[in-house]
């Protein structure tokens, strides 16, 4: 590599290519199409009872109607259900992230806090937080708070443990730089620690989101409706009660789609931060 002509390196403004522009996408589409075909054809050829396992085309029609496309009796109702679930998880996500940052931030400077955090993470991370739902119902009643509590318990530990690793692996040079420029505790957190730990942070948020998303849907299945309306889990369970299996599958598809969309949002976040800065390669 030429070091004399230092200007030879190209300006690299855009960071890594956007996820979705690679040729892998085409293969993914092919696989998805094949899976859909397999579903549709298996059900039709084997003449499976439609009440138990409807073909994809039926489910797709239900999903479209549920989302308000093409009319039908249930026009648009899915939006309300999915929003109910999303609002719970978004609220829990915000609470969990703030809590995790606060707790790991305290753990950096205090050995007792560090041990406490480590023990608690060890205890609660393996615990499926849905197991806390019965207690949460006792404490908070059949309310949204119970759901939020359970989801926060699912999310906060993986986020906190990734952040701990993220903080522990920051280069000593950057910490010295922060001390050199006389950063206080808060400024150090905001300007050095958090951005430097962002790759680990994003992976923690991702895992946390996954845990939370599973937990909230599961909790709704058990829990039913809260206050003003149920979420997507409740909708799926109801569909089973009324033998609307097509609707149930539509709900499940929607849960999957939301999961995929969030995953791409995380990729987008990486694209504009850690990939652009080169602190994470892919």
């Amino acid at each position, binding site marked *: *590599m030429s*070091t*004399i002509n*230092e*200007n030879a*390196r*190209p*300006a*690299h*403004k855009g960071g890594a290519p956007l996820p979705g522009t690679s040729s892998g996408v085409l293969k993914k589409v092919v696989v998805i199409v094949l899976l859909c075909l397999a579903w549709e054809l298996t059900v039709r050829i084997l003449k499976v009872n439609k009440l138990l396992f409807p073909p994809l085309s039926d489910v797709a029609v239900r999903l479209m109607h549920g989302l308000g496309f093409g009319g039908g009796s249930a026009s648009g109702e899915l939006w309300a259900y999915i929003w109910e679930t999303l609002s719970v998880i978004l609220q829990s996500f915000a609470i969990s992230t703030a809590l995790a940052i606060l707790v790991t931030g305290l753990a950096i400077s205090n050995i007792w806090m560090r041990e406490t955090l480590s023990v608690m993470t060890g205890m609660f991370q393996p615990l499926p937080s849905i197991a806390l739902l019965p207690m949460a119902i006792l404490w908070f009643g059949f309310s949204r708070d119970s759901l939020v509590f359970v989801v926060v318990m699912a999310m906060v530990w993986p986020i906190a443990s990734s952040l701990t690793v993220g903080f522990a692996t920051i*280069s000593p*040079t*950057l910490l*010295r*730089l922060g*001390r*050199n*420029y*006389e*950063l206080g505790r808060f400024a150090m957190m905001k*300007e*050095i620690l958090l*951005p*430097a730990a*962002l790759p680990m942070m994003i992976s923690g948020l991702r895992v946390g989101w996954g845990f939370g998303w599973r937990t909230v849907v599961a909790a709704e299945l058990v829990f039913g409706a809260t206050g003003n309306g149920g979420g997507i889990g409740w909708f799926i369970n109801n569909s089973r009660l009324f033998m609307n299996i097509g609707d149930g599958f539509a709900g499940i598809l929607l849960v999957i789609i939301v999961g995929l969309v969030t995953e791409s949002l995380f990729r987008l976040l990486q694209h504009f*931060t850690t990939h*652009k*800065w*080169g*602190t994470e390669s892919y």
Partner: protein
Amino acid sequence: MTTATTATAVGEALRLPANAGSDLVVLDRVSIEFPRSRGSGHVVAVSDVSVSIRRGEKFVILGPSGCGKSTLLTALGGFIPVSSGAILVDGKAVSAPSMNRVLVFQDFGQLLPWRTVSGNVEWAVGKRWPSMKPRERKARAAHYIDIVGLGAQAGQYPNTLSGGQKQRCAIARAFAVQPAMLLMDEPFGALDAINRERMQYELNKVWASESEPVTIAFVTHDVNEAVHLGHRVMVMSRGPGRLRALIDNPCVGSPPHDEAALALVQELRDLLKDEP
């Protein structure tokens, strides 16, 4: 600012300013010890060093690796405490890191990866003068980025820069906050030979371009670098780190094949070689 292209003219500009001479830093019988990581007892990294650094000079600390020269510099920055003795800057004992003594590391990772070249420099300027207007801050950053020749890369993130460019940016950032003192810990140590020589030449140029030259303490194990940069060269010996010699260098900024410089290089090399 010198626009001279010949080495001798640069050498002229590298003379110490008239007001130089008063001591900025006094090291008074400084010893630095670390507790051993295993077992009991201490490792003595620096032992009984007394020396003073004059205002506006480039002071080189030269020594073999492991002689405690970086430790001494780190203590000068206030990052680690001395075990005995005292480090005084402007008559006051050093107790904590300060923006008045800016460290430049060997590590290419000293730039904030999430800020561009100009972002890094502006960040530092903003820390130094929090009430400075954004326009003034940008102008100041741009000025120093131009001086180190990174104008074309100002909008790039550090991960797109070469090692030499990263060190240039770090130097621009350090000069831009106008500290009383720059502490440079082998900043060119990880560069290839050609780039290193170029950076030494340019460091001299940037230093000379300041209306009130900044005091620089520069740690290196490279004898040629010491002779090219230092108005005075302090030679340290290993285990424990002691002051071995303090040499005035009239050849600062001279071209690499200058005879007097070569003689001094040889003298320093001998000093490093025949350790007791």
